[in-house]
């Protein structure tokens, strides 16, 4: 049997609070037009299998071994430390493949029985599983399992076109309500990707409605356009029609990068301010996963986990929160988790991590993932450094006694000031 390889270390390890990310299946039945995983899976060696909807799943025995024999796995220290795992990074574990094969259920039953304190944050657009007692009984009164529900618009007609394989936004709001009633680890509205022209004009009503249904947090991130994705190019006209203008051209004109196109901060700012204001009004925790305005997050997990969760603190979102509170941040304030969980394996051998070309391999040869994180911290010109990633909100102002950079929070680059508060106006 040829199995799918997961979990893996996320490519966004530098600023991710759940770097260990799990997918049950190699493919996803939902086929959303904007899905970033089709950019990754729709190119290279696995392209044909992916586009032909071939499905593989993880090896259950290999999965279990991570907990039973942690010394044999790169993830061993992470799970021994009971750090939160992401489930649903590139595929939806509650999609129609799960209905057919039930592999997620098998793994969740095993985890619930044997390692009930393993924290998980799921990400889904699926709704059917909340009417299936085999699943809901695992979540009921389980504070360690959080779930994010992705909804990007309240308009069912728009959703039907960009998310053809998914239930309507209204059904997904119902799912939030059902999940909230299970008294599990919290329901989060995942308003990602925020697509101008599709998420507008209903996004604020969507947030209010999710709160009414029991969501306690929301997380957003603006749509990025991968020019190299032929799958996206072929389908982009649907998005343009729904927007009423050429969104592709809009990205070409107003993006800060031109391969993987990301809109500039000025365009995002009015939407972020509106969302934050509504969340403050209705008592909902607000998080921005986008590198722009990530400083708006209530705490250092941009997926929306509350600070009571045991997510990884060894990453730059946490650093950003520390700097927002104190004005500056040092590497020593985030390195503990990095050294505990990322020092035991080489960056170039990290599961699922992009190894880069020959020059990159030579440059980072012998470096552990923890060494690599420290290198990123100390090389602010790199795109994954705290300085470049957050576009200057953290500025390297000098070095500490260990030779590591000290970053200073730059109030002139954002509307969120330095304060003792998390920035959201609420005590969490």
């Amino acid at each position, binding site marked *: 049997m040829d199995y799918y390889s997961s979990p893996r270390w996320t490519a966004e390890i530098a600023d991710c609070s759940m770097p260990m990310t799990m997918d049950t299946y190699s493919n996803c039945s939902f086929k959303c037009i904007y899905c970033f995983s089709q950019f990754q899976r729709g190119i290279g060696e696995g392209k044909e299998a992916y586009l032909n909807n071939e499905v593989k799943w993880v090896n259950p025995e290999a999965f279990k071994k991570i907990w039973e024999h942690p010394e044999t796995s790169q993830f061993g220290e992470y799970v021994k430390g009971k750090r939160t795992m992401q489930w649903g990074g590139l595929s939806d574990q509650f999609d129609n493949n799960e209905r057919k094969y039930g592999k997620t259920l098998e793994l969740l039953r095993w985890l619930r029985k044997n390692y009930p304190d393993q924290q998980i944050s799921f990400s889904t657009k699926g709704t059917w599983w909340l009417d299936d007692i085999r699943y809901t009984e695992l979540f009921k009164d389980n504070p360690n399992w959080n779930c994010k529900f992705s909804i990007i618009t309240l308009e069912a007609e728009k959703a039907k076109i960009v998310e053809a394989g998914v239930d309507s936004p209204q059904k997904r709001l119902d799912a939030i309500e059902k999940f909230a009633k299970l008294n599990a680890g919290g329901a989060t509205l995942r308003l990602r990707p925020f697509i101008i022209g599709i998420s*507008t004009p209903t996004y604020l009503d969507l947030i209010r409605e999710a709160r009414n249904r029991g969501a306690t947090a929301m997380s957003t991130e603006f749509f990025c356009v991968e020019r190299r994705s032929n799958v996206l190019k072929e389908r982009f006209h649907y998005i343009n029609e729904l*927007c*009423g*203008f050429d969104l592709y051209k809009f990205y070409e004109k*107003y993006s800060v990068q031109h391969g993987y196109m990301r809109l500039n*901060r*000025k365009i995002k700012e009015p939407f972020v301010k509106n969302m934050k204001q509504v969340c403050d009004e209705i008592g909902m925790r607000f998080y921005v996963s986008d590198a722009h305005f990530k400083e708006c997050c209530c705490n250092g997990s941009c997926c929306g986990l509350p600070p009571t969760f045991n997510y990884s603190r060894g990453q730059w979102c946490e650093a950003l929160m520390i700097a927002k509170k104190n004005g500056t941040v040092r590497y020593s304030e985030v390195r503990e988790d990095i050294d505990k969980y990322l020092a035991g394996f080489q960056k170039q051998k990290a599961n699922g991590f992009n190894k880069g070309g020959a020059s990159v*391999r030579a440059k980072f040869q012998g470096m552990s993932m923890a060494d690599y994180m420290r290198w990123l911290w100390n090389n*602010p010109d790199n795109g994954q450094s705290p300085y470049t990633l957050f576009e200057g909100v953290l500025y*390297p102002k000098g070095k500490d006694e260990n030779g590591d950079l000290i970053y200073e929070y730059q109030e002139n680059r954002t509307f969120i000031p330095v304060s003792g508060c998390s920035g959201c106006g609420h005590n969490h």
Partner: protein
Amino acid sequence: MDDFDFFMDEQVEEKEEFPNLPKELQGIDLNPDESEKLKNDFPTLKQYITISFLESQTKELAEILGVPLLDPKKKNTYSFEEIKGAKENGLL
């Protein structure tokens, strides 16, 4: 004819490049601020060297560097540890 506005078409075209933009974006300059450009005092060190050579010099250069093989058709990349290791292990 004297009253014809030669700029009208151009103005209309510019105005309608992105019709139906949401109200949040109407009436504001959407171009990034110049101040968004990033500069800092801690540039990444290059930490590599480039050596150019002719195909006929391939063997000689490999001997000088102490590496077992150079392929003139490709970019050859060695880390410091590899060259040091090759010398220490007598791979010359």
